[in-house]
C-alpha cells in the first residue's frame, strides 16, 4: 500500500470513511475512472496498471460490463490535509442484477453519476440513479470524456441538472482517460458524501453486498459493516438462515486482498469462512456475531428469484453428464442460477434453467460453452406463469410444455416497469412498438429538448421475445432500455403447440397472448417448412391451440432422390457418398417418422428470436 500512515482497517474512525459507488452506463468510462482513482491514490502504480483493473472476468472485460462487484479501499489525503479512506464499491451494471445493484447502493452513502459528455444519460443509468436516490445517497453528477471532440458538456450538464435537480454549474467535468478533474472529484467525494454512522458498541451487523467463489479460497464475501466489529477467528452467523461459520480471514481489497485483524463501523471489506457455495453467503443477508449477536437483521434481504427460463441441451447427447457437472460448478458462484433435469422428445436430455433475466441466461450459456467446451441448444426463453384452474388449484409453469390443457380459470404473467430513453423523434415508433407488445404507457418526460423518457408497464414475456432488438432497430440504435419486475397480471394467454406430422414438438411449444397465437403459429410453421428437408411422404406442419389448428403448412413429399448415372467409374464415389449420408442420418432427430436435422432445431429456436441483448 502506498500510504503507510493511512488509518488501518479495524481501527479507522468512521468520520474519515467515505463509501461510494459509480453509476454509469457501459462505455461511459466507469472502469477507466476507477483505474484513474487507483492511480491517483497510489494504490496501484502505473507500471502495474492493468487497464480496467476492477473487471475480473474475461466475459465481462470483453463485453465491457461488470457482473460481479468488488470494493476497493483507497487512502486519500484531501486538500484539507486529512487522510481519508475512500471505499469505491463497484456495482453490477445490468438490468438483470437490479437487486445486487440495490445492495451495493445500500452499502454506500454517496454515488458518482458518471455520464458520457458526448452521449448523455442512458435508461439503465437513470434507473440506477433512481435507485440511488431512493436509498438517500448523495449524488455527485459528473460528465466524462470532456476531451472528446464530440463532447457537448453544456447540453448534458443541463440535462443532468434537470434530472437530479441541481445547478448545471455543479456538474463536474472530467476526463478519466487523461486524468483531468479526477483529483478535484475525489475532493468533492470527501466534501459532499456523508461519513458512515453506526454504533461501534452494538452487536456486529454487516450487510453482504456480494459473494464470489474462488477456487483456492472458497467463497469470498464482501460486506459493509454497519454496527459493531467483525474480527478474524470469531464465529459468525448468517441471519437469514442462522448458519454459523468461523471467520478464517477478514480484510480489505487494495486492490489485492490484504488481511486485517478486524473490520469496524462503516468499513467495507471481505470475509472468508471456508464455505464452498455462494448460496451459503447470500447477497443482502446480514452477518452478525454468533455469540451475543444482533437480534434484528438489516432490512432488504430477498431470495434471488429466477424470472426467465430456458431449456439447455447438449448438441451431442453424450455430453449430458458434462453439462450437469458444469452447471454444478457454475452454481457455486451464482446464487441465482437454478436448474433441474428435463427431457425433450426433440432435444433429448438437458436441463430447464432459471435465470434472473436474459443477460444472465446469455452469460451462463456463454460460460458453459467457453469454459466447459460444450455445444448447446437453448430453447426460446420463457417467463414463469401462475395458472389457476377452475377447481382453484394453482400451478407454476416454467416450461410451456407443462402448460395445462382445459379447465383454466386464470393465467397470471410477470410484468415489468420499463424505462426507455430515446431522442424525441422516435417517440412515435417506440409507442407503436410498446403497443404491439401489450404495453401500457405510465408516463413520459422530456429530459432535455430532444430527449425523452418513456415509462411503460409491459409483460416480461414480451421483452423476452426480441423486444430489445426491435427497439434498437426502430430507433437506429439510439434508444436505451431498463426494466424491473413489478408484479404480475392476469392475461389472456394460450399455449400454441407445433405439430409435425401430427406429433407435437415440445421444444417449439410457446405460451403467447391469444391475439398473437395466430401470428406465432404462422411464423413457426413457415420457418419449419423451410428448415425441414422433404421426406418420403408429405409432412403437415400445424400450429394448434389444444385440438384447434390455427395455422398449417406442409412440406411436400420428396419425389426424386436418385443419381441418374451409376456406371463403373461412379460406384466408389457413390458408395462413399451414401456411407456419409448414412452417418448424417444417424444425427437426425426423429419426431415420429419425420427426420429433423439438429440444425433445423437450432435455426428454428434462434435467429430472429434471439434473446434481447440489452446494452
Amino acid at each position, binding site marked *: 500500500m502506498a500510504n503507510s500512515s493511512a488509518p488501518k482497517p479495524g481501527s479507522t474512525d468512521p468520520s474519515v470513511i467515505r463509501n461510494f459507488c459509480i453509476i454509469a452506463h457501459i462505455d461511459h468510462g466507469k472502469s477507466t475512472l476507477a483505474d484513474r482513482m487507483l492511480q491517483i491514490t497510489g494504490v496501484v502504480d502505473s507500471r502495474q496498471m492493468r487497464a480496467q483493473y476492477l473487471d475480473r472476468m474475461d466475459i465481462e472485460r470483453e463485453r465491457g460490463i461488470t457482473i460481479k462487484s468488488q470494493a476497493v479501499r483507497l487512502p486519500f489525503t484531501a486538500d484539507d490535509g486529512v487522510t481519508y479512506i475512500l471505499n469505491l464499491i463497484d456495482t453490477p451494471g445490468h438490468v438483470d442484477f437490479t437487486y445486487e445493484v440495490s445492495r451495493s447502493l445500500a452499502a454506500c452513502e454517496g454515488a458518482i453519476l458518471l455520464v458520457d459528455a458526448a452521449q448523455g444519460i442512458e435508461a439503465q443509468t437513470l434507473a440506477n440513479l433512481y435507485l440511488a436516490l431512493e436509498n438517500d445517497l448523495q449524488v455527485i453528477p459528473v460528465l466524462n470524456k470532456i476531451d472528446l471532440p464530440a463532447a457537448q458538456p453544456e447540453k448534458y450538464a443541463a440535462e443532468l441538472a434537470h434530472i437530479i435537480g441541481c445547478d448545471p454549474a455543479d456538474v463536474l467535468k472530467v476526463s478519466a482517460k487523461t486524468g483531468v478533474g479526477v483529483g478535484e472529484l475525489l475532493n468533492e467525494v470527501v466534501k459532499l458524501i456523508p461519513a458512515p454512522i453506526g454504533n461501534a458498541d452494538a452487536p456486529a451487523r454487516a450487510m453482504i453486498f456480494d459473494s464470489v467463489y474462488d477456487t483456492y479460497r472458497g467463497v469470498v464475501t464482501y460486506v459493509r459493516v454497519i454496527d459493531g466489529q467483525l474480527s478474524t477467528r470469531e464465529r459468525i452467523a448468517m441471519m437469514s438462515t442462522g448458519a454459523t461459520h468461523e471467520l478464517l480471514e477478514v480484510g480489505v481489497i487494495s486492490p489485492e486482498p490484504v488481511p486485517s485483524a478486524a473490520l469496524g463501523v462503516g468499513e467495507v471489506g471481505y470475509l472468508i469462512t471456508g464455505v464452498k457455495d455462494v448460496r451459503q453467503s447470500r447477497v443482502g443477508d446480514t452477518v452478525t456475531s454468533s455469540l451475543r449477536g444482533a437480534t434484528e437483521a438489516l432490512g432488504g434481504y430477498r431470495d434471488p428469484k429466477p424470472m426467465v427460463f430456458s431449456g439447455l441441451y447438449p448438441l451431442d447427447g453424450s455430453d449430458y453428464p458434462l453439462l450437469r457437472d458444469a452447471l454444478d460448478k457454475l452454481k457455486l458462484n451464482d446464487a441465482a442460477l437454478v436448474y433441474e433435469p428435463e427431457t425433450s422428445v426433440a432435444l433429448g436430455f438437458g436441463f430447464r434453467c432459471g435465470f434472473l433475466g436474459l443477460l444472465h441466461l446469455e452469460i451462463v450459456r456463454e460460460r458453459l460453452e467457453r469454459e466447459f467446451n460444450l455445444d448447446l441448444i437453448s430453447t426460446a426463453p420463457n417467463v414463469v406463469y401462475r395458472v389457476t384452474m377452475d377447481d382453484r388449484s394453482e400451478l407454476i409453469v416454467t416450461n410451456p410444455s407443462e402448460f395445462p390443457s382445459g379447465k383454466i380459470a386464470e393465467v397470471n404473467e410477470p410484468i415489468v416497469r420499463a424505462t426507455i430513453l430515446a431522442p424525441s423523434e422516435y417517440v412515435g415508433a417506440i409507442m407503436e412498438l410498446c403497443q404491439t407488445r401489450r404495453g401500457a404507457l405510465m408516463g413520459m418526460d422530456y429530459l432535455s429538448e430532444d430527449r425523452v423518457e418513456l415509462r411503460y408497464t409491459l409483460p416480461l414475456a414480451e421483452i423476452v421475445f426480441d423486444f430489445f432488438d426491435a427497439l434498437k432497430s426502430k430507433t437506429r440504435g439510439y434508444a436505451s432500455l431498463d426494466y424491473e419486475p413489478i408484479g404480475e397480471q392476469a392475461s389472456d394467454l394460450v399455449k400454441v403447440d407445433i405439430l409435425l406430422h401430427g406429433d407435437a414438438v415440445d421444444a417449439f411449444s410457446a405460451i403467447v397472448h391469444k391475439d398473437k397465437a395466430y401470428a406465432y403459429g404462422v411464423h413457426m410453421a413457415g420457418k419449419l417448412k423451410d428448415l425441414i428437408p422433404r421426406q418420403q411422404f408429405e409432412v403437415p406442419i400445424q400450429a394448434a391451440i389444444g385440438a384447434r389448428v390455427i395455422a398449417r403448412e406442409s412440406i411436400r413429399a420428396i419425389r*426424386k432422390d*436418385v443419381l*441418374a448415372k*451409376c456406371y*463403373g*467409374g461412379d460406384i466408389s464415389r457413390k458408395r462413399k457418398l451414401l*456411407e456419409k449420408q448414412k452417418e448424417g*442420418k444417424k444425427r437426425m432427430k426423429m419426431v415420429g417418422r419425420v427426420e429433423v436435422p439438429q440444425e433445423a432445431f437450432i435455426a428454428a429456436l434462434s435467429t430472429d428470436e434471439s434473446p434481447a441483448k440489452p446494452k
Partner: protein
Amino acid sequence: MPSLPVEGEPAPVDGSLPPASADAFGQRPLSFYVHVPYCASRCGYCDFNTYTAAELGASASQSGYAAQAVAEVRLARQVLGDREVPLSTVFFGGGTPTLLPAQDLARMLGAIRDEFGLAADAEVTTEANPDSVTPESLELLRAAGFTRISFGMQSVATHVLAVLERTHTPGRAIEAIRDARAAGFAHVNVDLIYATPGETRDDFARSLDAAISSGADHVSAYSLIVEEGTRLAGKVRRGDIADVEDDVAADRYVQADEAFTAAGMHWYEVSNWAQPNGECRHNLAYWRSDDWWGIGPGAHSHIAGTRWWNVRHPSAYGDRINAGLSPAQAREILTKDQQRDEQILLGIRLREGLEAGTLSATQLSVVDAAMGDGLVHGDWAASGRVTLTQKGRLLADRLAIDLLS
C-alpha cells in the same frame, strides 16, 4: 467417366492384384472397358475425363493413343495370368471413341481379342457422336466386330441442345442411327437428357417420340446433373441459367417411363429402357458387381473385390505406359461389408432387384416400411426379390442409405 477423384491407397507399380483378389478372379464374368479421352469440343454440362485437341496440345497425341491402350491390354494379361476367361462384353466409351479412326478402334479391339478371346456371343459396344460417324466408318466398325453402338442424341429441341452446348443438329442423330442399322448393328442405343432448364414437357415428348421411332432398341434417359466445375455449373451459379428442379425431373421421368413402356421398351435399370433382349450386357456387368478391366486415362477397374483407377491425364497415362509401368493411380480393397453395400446400392437400381434371402432382418424391416410407402413392389415376400416401383426408382438412393450395413 465422371472426373472426381476418389481417395484410395497406393497401387503397386506392376499392377499386381492382392492375393485374395488374384485367387478369386475368374468366378465372375470378365468385361473390358476402353476409355477414349478425346472430344472435338467440350459440352457445357460434361465433367467426364475428356480433352479437346486444343487442351492437350502436343503432349498427348490422339494418333499414339491406340498403341498405349494396346500396351495396357497386354499388362492386363500379365496381371490376370493365363486363366481362360473369354470376354462376354467390351465397351468403348469416352470422350468420343469415334473421334479416333475406325482402324484405331479395330486395332484396340483386336488386341483384346488376341489376348483374352471374345465369347461367341460377345457384346461389343462403342459410344459415338452423331457428328463423328459416316456410313463408311460404321461399316468398318461392324467389320472389326462391334455389335452395338450408342449415340448421344440428348434432345431434339434446338434450344435445349444450345443450353447443353451440343454441336449436332437435332436431325443428325436420327440419320446416324439409320446408318448404323443399315451397316448391320444389331443393337443401337440413344442417350437422352431431360429436365434441362428451359425444356418443356412438349419438348421432351418430341425427344421421346424421336428416340422411340429412331430404330434404336435401347434408350438411356438421364436427368441433367449440374456437376461442379462445369461451365453449366458456372452459369447456374451466376443465375444465367435456372437450376434443374427435382420435381420437374420426377415428372419427366414418369413421362419417359410411360412413353417407353407404351412402345414396348421396359425399364431394366433406373435410367435404362430396352426392347426384349436389347439390354446392355456390359452395363449389367457393372450393376451385378462382375469383374472388369478399364483401359485408358482415368478408367476404373474392378476385379474380385479390388478396385483401382488410372491416372487421369492422357500425357501422365502415356508416360506410365511408355515406362512399362501400371497406369493405376490408386486402389481400394473392398471389405466384405463394402462389397455387400455396393451390391445393394447397384442391385436395387435393377429391375431384377435384390434377392430377399440375402438381406438381414433389419434390412427386411426397411423393405417392409418402403413397401408401405409404395416404393417396393408388394410381392417381394412371395417372389423372393425386392424390386422398386416407379415411385421407388425415383427414391432409390434414399432407400439404399437405409439398406446399407
